[in-house]
Every structure is written in C-alpha cells, then in structure tokens.
C-alpha cells in the first residue's frame, strides 16, 4: 500500500487475525466436540481442546445407526443423498439455462420476450414463499420421496439463465458471422464455440449451485418422509431435537462437521473460480 509503517501493518494483521478467529471459532468448537466421547461432552464446562475420540466418533457416525433412540438413516447414505441432490441440481440447472439463454440471445422468434419474462419472474420468488402449492404439485406428480422431487423443482430458477445471457452478450458478433460463413449450423456453433468460451463461467456456476443444492433445508424437509431419502443437512435438525432427550453432542457435531466438509472443500479448492463467479454473476 501507500505507506509502510510498522504500527499500521501490525494493526492490520491483528484485526485480520481476530476476524479469522471469530469466523473460525464456531467450527473449532464443533471440531473439538467431535473428538471427545459422550461422557466428556455432558460435563460443563465443555472442553476447548481436542480429545482422542475423533476416529471412534467418525466410525460411529458414518456407519452406526445414528443417535441412540432415534430412527435415522446411516450417515453415509445421507451424504450420498445430498451428493446426488446437489449434483442433479447443479448439472440440471446449468444444462437448461445454457440452452434457453442460447435461444433467447441468438434466435429471433415469436414469443421470445414472453419466454424471457416468464423466466425473469422466477428470479423474484424464492421457494419459501410458494412452498405449499409447490409441495402440492410435487405430491400430485408422485414425486415425493424421490431424487426427482428433491431436485427438479429447485432447478427452476432464473439466475443461471441470466448469467449465461450476460456471458453470451459479450461474445463478439464476428464469431457468429465467421462461423456461419464456414457453414456451421446453430448446434455446431453452440457446441464448438459458445460452450468452450463459457467454460470458466460454467465451472464457477457449478461451485455456487453445488453449494446451493447441498445446503437445501426446507424443501427436503417437506418432501421426504422416508428416512432413506434424508439429506445430511436436514438430519441436523432432527438430531438437535433428539438432543433434548439424550444429548450425544459428540455424534451431532461430528455429523455437522461431515455436512460442512464437502461444500467448504469445493469453495476452497475452486476459490479463484468461485470468487470470479460470485462477483461477476451478481453484479
């Protein structure tokens, strides 16, 4: 920066380190809870330093039958369900959005603007406000307790379409002109030119949508009643409720940790793309 005084440099790092500590503290406490046995987790004050039961807890959480006294699916199955849901939402949304954005930007056809506004409207309505009727639709279509019911209604959202529209609008017209002179049809142009050009945007969007899908809560809570369809994020709530009778905080916090790791890993691994995607899609 402009000046380089030791005191300001010190202050800068101090504030940032305090910020990092404040941000990380809840997760540290979760991690510590996941490394102690049940006995220790029922004595106040709780430990602030890790114990040596981490592997035991992991094993019991992943392959055990969940909390004693509750009937839940094994955690590995929940992780699998969450993964399936997150992947279906992210790939599905990217696929249909790419196609519709392509149609809207590159074709002139009747009702183009009608379609555009129909998609645009969906930008405004989060699933929470139309939850009851949407639930009814899914129930009538017989999609309760299925991966389709978990993911398809959440695929219908406009953000991705808008992002791709924005990306396509920045593609120079000359590319299409020359592609057409070379005799390329619309699909050829789409696959050979447009897709490669939007590669980074697709990847960034994938990160964002994966997290969005993985973190869904209310929707899976409503439409899955079968325990074998439970997702890991929604199981936390059931465990918290069960904790009022038999507090097995070590298992609950191990589950919370497991539920957190995949999306956090995705964000950190793809940080650059993600940052780019986040600052460019919404702005």
């Amino acid at each position: 920066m402009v000046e380089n005084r030791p005191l300001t440099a010190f202050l800068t790092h101090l504030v940032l380190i305090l910020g990092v500590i404040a941000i990380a503290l809840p997760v540290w406490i979760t991690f510590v809870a996941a490394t102690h046995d049940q006995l220790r987790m029922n004595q106040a004050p709780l430990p602030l330093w890790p114990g040596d039961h981490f592997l035991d807890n992991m094993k019991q959480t992943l392959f055990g039958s969940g909390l004693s006294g509750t009937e839940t699916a094994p955690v590995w199955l929940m992780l699998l369900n969450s993964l399936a849901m997150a992947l279906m939402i992210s790939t599905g949304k990217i696929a249909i959005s790419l196609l519709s954005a392509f149609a809207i930007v590159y074709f002139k056809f009747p009702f183009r603007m009608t379609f555009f506004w129909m998609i645009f409207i969906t930008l405004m309505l989060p699933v929470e406000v139309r939850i009851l009727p949407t639930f009814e639709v899914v129930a009538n279509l017989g999609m309760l307790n299925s991966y389709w019911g978990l993911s398809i209604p959440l695929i219908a959202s406009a953000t991705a379409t808008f992002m791709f529209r924005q990306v396509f609008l920045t593609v120079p017209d000359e590319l299409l002109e020359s592609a057409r002179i070379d005799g390329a049809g619309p699909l050829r142009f789409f696959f050979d030119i447009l897709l490669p050009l939007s590669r980074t945007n697709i990847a960034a969007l994938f990160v964002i949508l994966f997290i969005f899908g993985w973190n869904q809560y209310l929707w899976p809570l409503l439409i899955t009643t079968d325990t074998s369809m439970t997702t890991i994020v929604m199981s936390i709530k059931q465990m918290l409720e069960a904790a009022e009778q038999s507090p097995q905080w070590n298992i609950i916090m191990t589950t919370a940790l497991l539920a957190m790791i995949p999306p956090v890993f995705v964000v950190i691994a793809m940080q650059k793309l993600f940052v780019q995607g986040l600052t460019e899609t919404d702005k």
Partner: protein
Amino acid sequence: MLKRVHFPTSALPYLLVAPQILITLVFFIWPASQAMYQSFLIEDAFGLGTEFVWFENFEILWSDRHYLASFQRTAVFSLLVAGLSMGVALLLAGFAQRVVRGAMFYRTLLIWPYAVAPVLAGALWVFMFNPTLGIFPYFLEFAGITWNHYLNGTQAMVLVILAAAWKQVAYNFLFYLAAMQSIPNSVIEAAAIDGAGPARRFWTIIFPLISPTTFFLLVINMVYAFFETFGIIHAVTQGGPGTSTTILVYKVFNDGFVGLDLGGSAAQSVVLMVLVIAMTVVQFRFVERKVAY
C-alpha cells in the same frame, strides 16, 4: 438483448427453451398463481368447503396484532443481520485490502463460511450457547449474565442474529474486497501525497466510492435475512420462545404447514412476494445500470 447477427426462425429455439419453460410453468408459475388464488379463499377448519372471500384474508392480516408484530420483528432482525454482517465485512475488507503478503491466506480463511448451510450455522451456535453445557453461557455467568435462550426472547433473538450474520460475513467480505480492489491506486496515492492518513482516506475516498456496493449488499442481505434464515430459526428457536423469533417466512411455514390455515398462509406468501419483487426490481435496476454489455 438480441444479437445483431442471429439465426433464422425455426423450431429449434422452441426446443431449446422448452425444458426451462416447462419446469418454470409446472413448479413456479402454477404454484405461485395457486398461492395467489388461495389467498382469496377461506377454508373451513375441517377442509370440507372453501369460500371465495376476495381480500378478507388480507384484511384479517392487517388487523392481526401478531402479524404486525412479526412484520416489525422481521424488519429489526434483517436490519441487524445486514448491519452487523456488513459492518464486520467492511472492517475486515478494509484491512485485508492493505495486506500484500498473505492476502490469499486471509481471504481463504475468511470466505469459507459462505459454504456452510444456514441450518448448520444455527446448530453450531445453538451448541455454543447451550444453557447447561455451552461455552458462552459458562463465561457469561462470570459477567453476571444468565443465558437461556429457551426462556428469554431477547436472548433468542440475539442468538439467531449472531448465527445469521456470522454466515453472511463471508459473502459481504468478498464483494467489499472486490469493490475496493477496483478503485484505481492513483486516487489513493494522490490523497496520501496530500497528507491524508489511512483512516481519512478510507472515509473520504474509499467509502464513498464503494457506496454502490453497499447499497447492492444491503438489498441482498435483506433478502437473505427475509428468506434464507428459515433454517437458522427452525433449528435454533422454532420461532420461540413465544413468538419472539417468529419472522415472516417462519410464520408462513408455521401457519400453513403446522396451523393448516391455508388462506391466511397464502395471503402472507403474497405479501412476501410483493416485498421480494419490490426488492428485486430495485436491485435489478441497479445491476442494469452497472453492467456494460
């Protein structure tokens, strides 16, 4: 909107938009219009008959003390969540922006809560503040504060605000950092030559220049606090104790799925829709102005 050069009309564009339009119609437009229609109906308690009542549900809402209180509560909740998370993010971004060495390190450590589900954030915080076992109540005891968010409405509100803001700091931090990095260095250097110190430069140059970002984030954070915090409320307080943390979106869920007051819940949905639409329009106008094609 449309490319200057484009493909001729054919059946292809219809095929291309078909999946998106189909899903939008079935899972979006239809349910949303159903919500609107239901808001004009009153169903009797046994589900035997419905009656079309025009705006009666809305009139009931506006004279309902609980609904108005929930409105007010939501406003307080969202403003505090937005204020707290944006304030902390601005502070951290202001300092992070000065760091040259270790910038990536700090950024990574500050952005990851973005990936944490709201309901998990809630679980983490409810564990830390568990009245019998939690770490914080143990220390608060020394300060003479008895913590029990199961009984004390204000404390319950504080807890959900902390959890909601904690999760949102990461997002705001990223946007503030990006905005600050787009300010030309020469402007800041010129101010430094004129003798302005770091704090003064921040308030007279950086802060005004990032005010569009602040406005944008305010809208985003309000929408976040209105809707996405459902998981936090549901996991941490379930709207209680009493109704002290029942914000609007929780009330829609509670009245509809638990109380089975379909008309009333639908009317509340419609009010929420209007609110989001208003906020989205504001935001979109802002975005349209900022984005250059």
